[in-house]
């Protein structure tokens, strides 16, 4: 009984905060737009009893999903999001791995401080941090002024409102999610394994490639998913840093919802996005599971 109660808590949480909202969004995506409050129909009228239920279900259809295929804006936005997500994940990995490696190599008394520094940005509001990047990257921003002052460039660079700014924003924001799992994998690495590899004829570099990388792989995979999954749906960073030229599905979703007030189409966009994300989420879960089995 106690075990059941313990398991029930996370399931209740999932049910209330994930499944129910998902069903609501799914229902809206199958509805039609209308000028009303709420801006869609049909709505469920339980007082009409069985008849009401019947008219409710007969009013639902897949019109909005068909609509998504007619306008190439949507699939382009999905593809562009996937591409931006993938590229920024790769950059985050390239930046995050050396940081995590350096942390794991540092003297043990330094590690808590370094960990703190990685988490420190979370103490400031995410929006404020993104706004401050606007201040850094804009034409008159800190970065351009610095580069002009050093004489490296003669004209200010246009970074803000380009995809570059979006990559910078995503890499910056999600870097801790990459560093932490890789660090935790590297920290557990037994030094004598590297010595053994050297003893058996590896150079330092080869030992890194044959021992360190494979043994930190679970951390790399976890970090990549933790960056890739939220990056695809990212909305704030592209809309604040990317300008009108950057196409991402999160932004399209926002515009459908708030500019067009087309809730059903926006919901359909959200449902498709979720379906796309389910694949990497399942892969991520599998990785975690395998990891647990290997350790157990």
């Amino acid at each position, binding site marked *: 009984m106690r075990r059941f109660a313990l398991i029930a808590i996370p399931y209740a949480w999932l049910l209330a905060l994930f499944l129910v909202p998902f069903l609501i969004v799914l229902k809206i995506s199958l509805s039609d737009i209308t000028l009303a409050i709420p801006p869609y129909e049909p709505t469920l009228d339980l007082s009409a009893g069985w008849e009401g239920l019947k008219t409710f279900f007969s009013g639902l259809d897949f019109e909005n999903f068909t609509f998504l295929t007619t306008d190439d804006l949507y699939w382009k936005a999905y593809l562009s999001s996937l591409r931006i997500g993938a590229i920024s994940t790769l950059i985050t990995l390239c930046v995050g791995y050396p940081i995590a490696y350096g942390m794991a190599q540092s003297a043990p008394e330094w590690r808590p401080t370094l960990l703190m520094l990685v988490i420190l940005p979370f103490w400031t509001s995410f929006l404020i941090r993104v706004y401050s990047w606007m201040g850094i990257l804009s034409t008159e921003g800190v970065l351009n002024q610095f580069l002009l002052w050093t004489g490296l460039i003669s004209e200010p660079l246009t970074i803000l409102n380009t995809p570059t700014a979006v990559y910078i924003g995503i890499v910056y924001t999600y870097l801790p999610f990459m560093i932490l799992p890789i660090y935790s994998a590297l920290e557990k690495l037994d030094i004598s394994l590297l010595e*053994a590899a050297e*003893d*058996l004829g590896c150079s330092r570099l080869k030992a890194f490639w044959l021992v360190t990388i*494979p043994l930190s792989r679970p951390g790399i995979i976890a970090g990549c998913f933790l960056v890739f999954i939220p990056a695809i749906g990212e909305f704030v960073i592209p809309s604040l840093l990317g300008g009108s030229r950057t196409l991402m599905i999160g932004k399209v979703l926002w515009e459908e919802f708030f500019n067009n007030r087309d809730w059903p189409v926006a919901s359909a966009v959200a449902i498709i996005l979720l379906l796309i994300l389910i694949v990497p989420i399942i892969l991520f879960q599998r990785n975690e599971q395998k990891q647990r089995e*290997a350790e157990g």
Partner: protein
Amino acid sequence: MAQPKPQTVFAPWTDPDAKPLIRFRNVTKRFGDFTAIDDLTLDIYEKEFFALLGPSGCGKTTMMRMLAGFESITEGTIELAGQDIAPVPPNKRAVNMMFQSYALFPHLSVWDNIAFGLRREGMEKDRMNTRVEEMLRLTRLERFAKRKPHQISGGQRQRVALARSLAKAPKLLLLDEPLGALDAKLRQDTQFELMDIQEKTGTTFVIVTHDQEEAMTVASRVAVMDEGRLMQVDTPAEIYEQPATTYVADFIGDVNLMKGNADPKEGFVLLDWAPNQPQIKAETSKNFAAGQELHYAIRPEKIAITAEKPAEAPNALQGKVLDIAYLGNISTYHVELPGGQIVKAQTANTRRLANRGFTWEDEVWLSWTATAGVLLES
């Protein structure tokens, strides 16, 4: 079972013409202010099973890590087959090491762990397969080739580590506390297995251990170390029977140490060691000055324990049984002399416990021959 005729004794260290495989020459290693190895000179010969024995922190592991190339040498040189090894990085040395923690690669199967070093050599596939199979057979691991290290037992892991370090056929194999993680029974079996494998492969083994029994069992020669210095390097029998210092006598096995002043005679020494006790008579070839302070070391099993005073024993003391440690096969008696000194005597329990001759508080006689103990300078 018919035994082959006895082979010539393997003792290259007694042959002045023999070329040592490893030469430590005045090697010193410092970590900051701490001197781990202090001006150490040592020769180890080919095909030896050489044990470095000492308490933790005596520098034995540092010596091994210097051989493997994981620690630099502060002063002096180490030669391997006539070549100074200081400039050779660990991955280029014809030396392999078996780590205390085994250091098996957890992401590779047993087979791939053993093949790891061969792959780095770029050995062609057929030869590598044969070599790995050979190693698996040698360590009786054929059935576990496909398993990952976490899927096998501690004893099997130890054998994988051994197979992996032997696969490259090194000139020298270093074993760092190889049996430390095994339980007593398995450890004994594995000791004999190690000796067997060492003999079959003809590889020179250097083993680091703090377990004196292990060192005595496996090694052709044992180096007893303390605080970065060699206390004695000799065969297990010599170290046990002829310890050079009281430290070695005390570290290896059980011993009675008696301090006294020498009264040298022709061919033997009489030792005044306690008031109201007869002098101890010890035969020796060494010369001692009259009145020189000496230690007399005698092993408990060399002392006979009897109820009556034995006739014609060069050394005989009377005392009272204070304590009996029953170990199954042997019993150690702690006998208190009238002056309060305690002497340990050991007897094999050839009869059942109920027939034991002595019990607590019994008056007994301890006796031993003039050659049973050794005299050590303080």
